[in-house]
């Protein structure tokens, strides 16, 4: 490596440069945080039902089979746009009904097909989950996914 780059110079570039990039990153994080709250997720209120639904989503670790906005396991379908795919994004009541009948019909038991476990949930839990998925669906995700297949 070139002679002008001594060990101490390399070290100083490392420390100085890292601080520089951390500062920029923190600034952009602050802006992004505000953007999420005020713009990209502002289309639907973050209601108690949505929050409850998020807890239901977490307690059952849905993310370790499904993906949500493309993140998670890739073992089961994307659900960030599932309400659009089902055609119920604009109807809370239909969203609840279809999700309830879906969850209560599992596992399918079909040989050779991936099985979703049977989760015992109250109607309130299912309603929350439906609202949470509608809330996720209305988020401005820069046009992703490319189509309704998710």
């Amino acid at each position: 490596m070139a002679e002008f780059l001594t060990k101490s110079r390399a070290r100083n570039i490392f420390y100085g440069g890292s601080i520089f990039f951390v500062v920029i990153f923190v600034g952009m994080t602050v802006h992004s945080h505000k953007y999420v709250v005020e713009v990209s997720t502002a289309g639907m209120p973050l209601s108690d039902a949505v929050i409850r639904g998020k807890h239901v989503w977490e307690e059952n670790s849905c993310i370790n089979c499904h993906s949500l906005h493309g993140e998670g396991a890739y073992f089961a379908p994307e659900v960030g746009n599932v309400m659009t795919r089902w055609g119920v994004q604009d109807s809370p009541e239909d969203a609840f009904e279809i999700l309830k009948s879906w969850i209560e019909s599992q596992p399918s038991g079909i040989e050779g097909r991936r099985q979703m476990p049977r989760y015992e949930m109250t109607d309130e839990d299912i309603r929350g989950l439906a609202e949470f998925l509608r809330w996720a669906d209305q988020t401005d995700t820069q046009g992703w996914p490319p189509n309704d297949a998710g």
Partner: protein
Amino acid sequence: MKYQSQKVAYWYFLAAMALFGIQVLGGLLAGWVYVSPNFLAEVLPFNIIRMIHTNALIVWLLLGFFGAAYFLIPEESEREIWSPKLAYLQLIILVVGTLGAVGSYLVGIHGGREFLEQPLWVKFGILVAALIFLLNVSMTVLAGKKTAITNVLLMGMWLLSLLWIFAFINPDNLSLDKMYWWFVVHLWVEATWELVMASILAFLLLKLTGVDREVVEKWLYVIVATALFSGILGTGHHFYWIGLPGYWQWIGSIFSTFEVIPFFLMMSFAFVMVWKGRKNHPNKAALLWSLGSSTVAFFGAGVWGFLHTLHGVNYYSHGTQITAAHGHLAFYGAYVALNLAVFTYAMPMLRERAPYNQVLNMASFWLMTGGMAFMTFVLTFAGTIQTHMQRVVGDYYMDVQDSLSIFYLMRWGAGLAVVIGAILFIYSIMVVRKSEVITPGSANPVPGE
């Protein structure tokens, strides 16, 4: 082994290898569920298997890092560890926490953020263990000789522990949850862990090749500088589609492209040091793992990462088997193989039986690396087909998955090779066959030869 307290590392490595076994067996099981979906579906659903597979991986890698630090810091600082008792206490906390987490998962108690599913008490346990570790190694280094290797290693460990705070922050707003989640996930594996990896690699190359310390340490600073300069803003490549501003598509694409550089440098570093080095170290297996780690990390993390990091590509490939392909090879090359390099280097000394041939160990390298490479190839093919059918044509997810079954079968075969390799590795480390023990030759070649 120059310092008695280095012995602490032995127990860390043992615990790490046990979890390594659990991790790959979990992977084998998950891979089999892809092939035969009804298998165990009622008893042990896929999400629980995957949780065990990923969590065991993360914890054993961390145990390996902790062990590596306890092994190399006394040699670098030229003194005993500040408190071996605290080091053992830390290990006990981590093992109890791990067993507690696995037990909880099996009875259905877990969080819901991917990779951070540990119950709250386990998360606190990890925090306490990290604090004990930081106190212990910082006191050791402060009292002793300070080198670039310990500087970078400590900086990596401090920063990754600090980032663990975000494991406790879970906003109700999903997009915010995702953004801060990446502060742990991305800034661990694509920033702070690279610091740990580079410093451990530097230590291994220093010992194995005998190249001048000044040269090694200058390389080290250049590598970690490129890692953080690219990796911090490179976080943006996870921010494309989760509800964050559009500018991340450019920031993320540009900076994450640069993330290839530290991995290219680490690979170059390893080979250049071996060429320059005059030392003929008897532990050839450790050298193989060190070179292999940096090479596979370059392909897995660097090349396969770049493959789908540009936002125009990622728009179609995001969340497909392409991601799975990259994830497997990147983790294997960068962090699994590096840990196995440390075990291979240190265990003979910790067990006071060096040097000796490690033919089985080297065989396990080729078996595991071959298996992981094949797995990556088949998942890449599966992901390419999936991307086309699902994202371009618009076929439904399950229909697409049904047409990928041949790839999942081949992936399982590749996984089986990895598991056999892992068992072979553990066997070769723990059991020394008599024929492999050799008497050390003369350190300097005969003049005139």
